[in-house]
């Protein structure tokens, strides 16, 4: 597989970040950074990472299935993650999730037909004092109201 030069540089650095013979340690970071570039963990990526860190594809697959941020299917260009855990729930995050679903016309875990947006209800994202919070891809948004969310999603839609 070919990756961008930046990602290759990151991989090279990762492989040097662990003791000799322990390159398997680079597996999870490699999978996540590669997923960011290609959109999902494909069979081809599993093979590639297995080969680069010196394990079997099965050993990569058992790791992929464990971590919630690693996913085999493609998500929307903008992956909207709504935290509904306790501190956010106390600020009506469950209603915010429902509002997000209505706004985008998809269910939790769904992807819009144009592939632009997807929704995921997530566990605590470490934004408890600024609740309710969401993440769009890796960007945090704090003290989110339905109106703020509408403006954010409308802005992203125009940006396409």
């Amino acid at each position, binding site marked *: 597989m070919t990756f961008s030069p930046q990602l290759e540089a990151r991989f090279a650095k990762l492989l040097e*970040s662990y003791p000799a013979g322990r390159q398997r340690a680079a597996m999870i970071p490699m999978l996540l950074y590669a997923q960011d570039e290609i959109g999902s963990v494909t069979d081809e990526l599993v093979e590639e990472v297995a080969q680069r860190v010196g394990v079997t594809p099965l050993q990569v697959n058992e*790791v992929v299935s*464990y*971590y919630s941020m690693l996913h085999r299917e493609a998500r929307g260009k903008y992956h909207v993650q709504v935290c509904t855990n306790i501190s956010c729930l106390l600020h009506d995050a469950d209603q915010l999730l429902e509002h997000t679903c209505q706004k985008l016309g998809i269910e939790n875990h769904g992807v819009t037909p144009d592939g632009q947006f997807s929704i995921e209800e997530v*566990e605590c994202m*470490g934004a*408890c004092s*600024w609740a309710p919070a969401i993440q769009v891809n890796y960007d945090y948004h704090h003290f989110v109201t339905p109106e703020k969310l509408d403006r954010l999603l409308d802005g992203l839609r125009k940006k396409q």
Partner: protein
Amino acid sequence: MLYNEPSPLETRVLSRRFGMAHSESIETYLATEGYQAFLKASKMTPDEIISEMKASNLRGRGGAGFPAGMKWSFVPRTSPKPKYIVVNADEGEPGTCKDRVLMENDPHQLIEGVLIAGLAVDAHAGWIYIRGEYRYLIDIMDRAIAEAHERGWLGKNIQGTGFDFDLYTHTGAGSYECGEESALLESLEGKRGVPRIRPPFPAVAGAFQCPTVLNNVETFCAAPAILLNGGAAFAALGIPKAGGTKLTCLTGHINKPGVYELRLGFPVKQMIEEVGGGMRNGKKLKAFIPGGSSCPVLTAAECEGATMDYDSMAQRKSMLGSGGVVIMDEDTCMVKACLRLMKFYAHESCGWCIPCREGTAWLTKIMTRFHSGGGSPQDIGLLGDIAKNMLGRTFCPLGDAAALPMISIVEKFRGEFEDHLNGKPCPYEHSNRMVTA
């Protein structure tokens, strides 16, 4: 920059650079006594460093509260194996958002804390395991590490002391369980985040089976202040047996949510009323979680006279935990809050220990039925029984972390469970929307 309006009641030690211009830069750090504690420690013996840490009465700030100096002293320094430092930045305990603030505002303080630990146990490499969602913090830490290398505060022969140290960031990929130290080590090695059977403890066989100091971000961040001003000075900020300050995240139904640095032993009532500006909309306090969702919940009555420290919370059969305070007002449905927590633990159980895997799933199933009005009177006892059968029967604390809040809520708020019986709609919800399981 994540930074709330500070409170005059704070004791700002770890957070003293928050709010300064470019607080994250090495220039600001060096201009404000940065890396001076490392230089001081480099002239001390490892035993002297560890005795300062012990004198500080610093207890692990991730939630378990184990004395940090003692943890460092368990590392066999004469072992022929390399020793490592691992920072737990997998902040995921619901209600907790303090490590994020520490890394964002003052990344060099963390690096210096790691270097001090390195001197104390003769380690020359370390990793900061940062949860995957905190990608921007990985970038901030990577920049700070690069700055430290450029200025000679990391790498070979640091500032001519003859001490070498390399530090790396390592991303997680979505797993609460990886905040548990042995699961974190498995994850660091490129495996599923399943806990290890202990002993051996990480101090003896940690990262890559080598002796390892593994602490929370906040614990390492306290080390520079302890070395610079002495362990006794840090200890004096708190109370006997619990030294120093704690970054406390006020969350939930409060007027001024935010992260505040408070001395150990700070009164709970004063924290809510004065630091947090009181209950939102003038409502009454119903329930209080002292430090993350894994702590048993306290009632408003139990908060009377309580202070934010290990012993006061233990007397109330709860825990100080991680500093993630969750404040719930009189309009909160405790059944719904409990259901959401059980859903969380069921999602995050690694599935290795059967009492946790099955217990969290059953608690979620029964709670879901209960909250939607389909519960029976027997279910109330069943919830407590299932939870009690999970306690102490798992290799890591996740099983207990689910069982303890469940037991406390069902015991202390039994009436609310009864209010949901016989198909009655949730008395706290206008729409009677159900949390989807």
